[in-house]
C-alpha cells in the first residue's frame, strides 16, 4: 500500500535563551551569510537536545533527522519523555511551524487537534461556536450544517445551544469542542494527548471515538501520548523519540516496552534530587536533597521505608509536611500520602518516611515527592519543593503470597485484603 504520509529528515532548530537584542545581531549575520551564498552560520552550532546538560551553543536541535512513514488507516503512537520532541513534531505535522530542514509529503487533508475548542469565542452562542470551531478546523459551512444535529446531540448541550459559551461550565465547553472535533473528516488526524483533559468518562469517550474513527472509516491517526496504556490499546505502530531523534520504530506494544525499559529507569536504592526532577518553580526554602530506600524486596503487604535528606536554605518558622504521590509506570496516579507537621531546626536533616499498609499490586511504581508549607489540619498546602520521579520501587511477588504469582494487568494496582467466611448453620 502506498504511504499516506512520508516524513524525510525532519529537523527543527531552536534558539536557547531569551530573544532580545542579541537576536538582531544574529539575524543580520545570518542574512549576510545567506546573501553571499554561504550556509547558515548558526545551523552548525546546534547540538542534540539534552535537557540535563548545559548547552555550549546558543542553538539546539529539538528534532534531528526524523524519518517515518504512515500507511492509510494506521494509528501511529508517538511516545517519548518530556522534551523528547513530541510536541515539536506535532507542531510541524499540523503546519503550525515549519521544519528547519527536511520535508513531509502528505496525501490527504490533515486536521490537527492540539486543543479542544480552538477559536471559541466567549460571546458567541454554542451554535455559532460550532460553526466557528468547525471552520477553524477546516470544515466548510455545508459540512457543518449537515452534521449540526449530530454534533449538538453528541455534545449533550442541547438545552444551552443558543446561550453564549461564557455561561457554560468548563466541562460543557470541552464537550462541545470535542463534539465538533469528533465529526471532523480529514484523511489524517493529528491528536495530542491534551485531549485527555476532562474527566475519566470523557477520556473514555474520546479514545472510543478515535477507535471507531479508524476502524470504521479507515482514518489515519497520529497520536501523541504519555499514556502507555492508551498507546498500547489504540495504536498499531509506535515511534519512540529520544532527545529529538527516532530511537525506536515498530509495533506499538514493542515501542511501549522499549520506552519503558530504556527511559523510565528511576534509581531504586538511592537518588539524588537535581534539576531534572524539578518542573515547578518553588521557593525551595527547604530543599529535597536525596531519597534512599534500604530494602530491595518489597511485596504487597510489606512496609516501605525511605530516608529523605533535606536542607534548610532560609530560616523558616512555619511547619512543613512531606507529601507524595505514588505513580505507576504508565503515569497513572495510584494514591498519595501525607505526613504530620514537621518543624525543621537543623540545617540538614533526615526525615524517615514509612508507608505501612499500601497493598500495592505487583509492578513498578515511582514517587513524586513534595515538601509543603502548612499542614493537613488547616487544609491548605503550598509547595516548597517538589521532585518528580524521586525514586522508584518494585513490588514483587512473594512466595508467601501465592495469589500474586499471576497478578494480571486488568486486575488493577491495589490488592484488597479480604476475609471470607462461610456462614454455616449450627
Amino acid at each position, binding site marked *: 500500500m502506498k504511504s499516506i504520509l512520508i516524513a524525510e529528515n525532519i529537523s527543527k532548530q*531552536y534558539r536557547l535563551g531569551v*530573544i532580545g537584542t542579541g*537576536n*538582531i545581531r544574529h*539575524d543580520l549575520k545570518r542574512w549576510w551569510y545567506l546573501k553571499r551564498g554561504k550556509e547558515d552560520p548558526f545551523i552548525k552550532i546546534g547540538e542534540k537536545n539534552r535537557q540535563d546538560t548545559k548547552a555550549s551553543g546558543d542553538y539546539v536541535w529539538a528534532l534531528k533527522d526524523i524519518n517515518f512513514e504512515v500507511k492509510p488507516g494506521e494509528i501511529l503512537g508517538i511516545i517519548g519523555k518530556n522534551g523528547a520532541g513530541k510536541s515539536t513534531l506535532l*507542531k*510541524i*505535522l*499540523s*503546519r*503550525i*511551524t*515549519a*521544519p*528547519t*530542514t*527536511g*520535508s*513531509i*509529503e*502528505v*496525501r*490527504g*487533508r*490533515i486536521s*490537527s487537534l*492540539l*486543543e479542544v475548542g*480552538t*477559536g471559541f*469565542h466567549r*460571546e*458567541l452562542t454554542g451554535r*455559532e461556536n460550532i*460553526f*466557528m470551531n468547525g*471552520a*477553524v*478546523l*477546516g*470544515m*466548510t*459551512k455545508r459540512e457543518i450544517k449537515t452534521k449540526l444535529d449530530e454534533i449538538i446531540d453528541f455534545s449533550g448541550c442541547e438545552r444551552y445551544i443558543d446561550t453564549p459559551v461564557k455561561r457554560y461550565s468548563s466541562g460543557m465547553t470541552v464537550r462541545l469542542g470535542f463534539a465538533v472535533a469528533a465529526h471532523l473528516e480529514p484523511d489524517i488526524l493529528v491528536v495530542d494527548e491534551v485531549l485527555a483533559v476532562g474527566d475519566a468518562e470523557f477520556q473514555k469517550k474520546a479514545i472510543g471515538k478515535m477507535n471507531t474513527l479508524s476502524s470504521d472509516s479507515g482514518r489515519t491517526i497520529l497520536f501523541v501520548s504519555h499514556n502507555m496504556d492508551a498507546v498500547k490499546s489504540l495504536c498499531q505502530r509506535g515511534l519512540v523519540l529520544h532527545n529529538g531523534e527516532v530511537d525506536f520504530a515498530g509495533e506499538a506494544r514493542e515501542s511501549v516496552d522499549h520506552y519503558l525499559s530504556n527511559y523510565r529507569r528511576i534509581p531504586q536504592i538511592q537518588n539524588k534530587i537535581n534539576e531534572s526532577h524539578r518542573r515547578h518553580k518553588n521557593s525551595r526554602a527547604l530543599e529535597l536533597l536525596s531519597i534512599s530506600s534500604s530494602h530491595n524486596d518489597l511485596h504487597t503487604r510489606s512496609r516501605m521505608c525511605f530516608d529523605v535528606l533535606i536542607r534548610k536554605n532560609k530560616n523558616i518558622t512555619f511547619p512543613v509536611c512531606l507529601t507524595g504521590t505514588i505513580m505507576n509506570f504508565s503515569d497513572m496516579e495510584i494514591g498519595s500520602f501525607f505526613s504530620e507537621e514537621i518543624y525543621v531546626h537543623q540545617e540538614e536533616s533526615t526525615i524517615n518516611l514509612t508507608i505501612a499498609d499500601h497493598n500495592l499490586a505487583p509492578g513498578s511504581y515511582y514517587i513524586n515527592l513534595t515538601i509543603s508549607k502548612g499542614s493537613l489540619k488547616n487544609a491548605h498546602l503550598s509547595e516548597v519543593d517538589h521532585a518528580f520521579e524521586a525514586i522508584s520501587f518494585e513490588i514483587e511477588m512473594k512466595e508467601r503470597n501465592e495469589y500474586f504469582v499471576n497478578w494480571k494487568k486488568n486486575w488493577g494496582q491495589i490488592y484488597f485484603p479480604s476475609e471470607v467466611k462461610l456462614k454455616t448453620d449450627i
Partner: protein
Amino acid sequence: MTENEEGWLYEISPKRKIIDLNFKEIWRYRDLLILFVKRNIVTVYKQTILGPLWYFIQPLFTAITFTLVFNNIAKVPTGEIPPFLFNLTGITAWNYFSQCLTGTSNTFKSNAAIFGKVYFPRVIMPLSNVITNLFKFGIQLGVLLIAYLYVLYTGIKVTPNTNLLLFPIYILMMATMGLGLGMIISAFTTKYRDLSVLVGFATSLLLYISAVPYPLAEVQKEMPEYAWIVQYNPLTHIIEGFRYMLLDTGIFSWNSFFYTLAISFGLFFIGLVFFNRTEKNFIDTV
C-alpha cells in the same frame, strides 16, 4: 493544494517561495473568513449600551474636535466647504486606512493562541480585518452622507465631481496600503515588540502629515519648505483625492494618483513577502 502527478496533496517543508499565496486554499477557507468577519462585527459591541452607535460617535466627535481646534482656533481655511463636512470627509477616509493598519499589524501577536493550535491560511486574519473595517467604513460613509445632505439642505453648494468613478480604486488603495504596511509591521513585531508600541502613536501622528485636518494647498502656501513631507506622503493623495471627488475641493493630479496607486500596491506586495516569511515560523519567536 497543488496536486502533482504522484498525487501528493501538499508538502511541509522549510522552502519558501517569495510569495506563497495559495488562492485555492484561501477559497476553501472562505467560510472561515466570513465567520471571522461576522464574529468581529458582532462581538465588539456585545454588552455595551450604545452598541453599533459607537460606529457613529467616534468620527463625529473627532470631526467636531478638529473643527474647533483647526478651523475655529487655528483658523485653517477650508474654502467654500463648511469645516465640519471637510473634516468629517477626511476622517472617514483616514479611519478606514488606520484601522486596517493597526488591525493588521497586530495579526500575529493577538492571534498567537489560535495560530499556535491550528493551521489555516494565516492571511485569512488580516483579510477578515480589512473586510470588517470595510463594513464599519460603510456605516461611517452613511454618517458622512447624512452630514452631506444636511449641508446641501442649508443651502451651501457642495457637489461631487466625475472622479467619483474612482471611488472603488480609492478604497482598494486604502485597503492595500493598510494591509501592506500592517503586514510588514506584524512580521517584525513577532520578534521585536518595540514596533507595536511605535505603531500606536505613529498612526496618530501620521494623521497630521497626511493632510487630514487641512487642505494640501494650505501647507504649500504657508510652509513651502516643509510641504514636501506632506506631498510625498501617499496618504495625503488618498485623503485629498477622496475630498476632491466628494466635495470638489483640493488638488488632484493623475501623476500623484498613479504614484499613490504604485506605492500602495508596492507596499502590499512587500507586506505579503514579509508576511509569508513570518507565518511559517513565527510561533517559535512570538
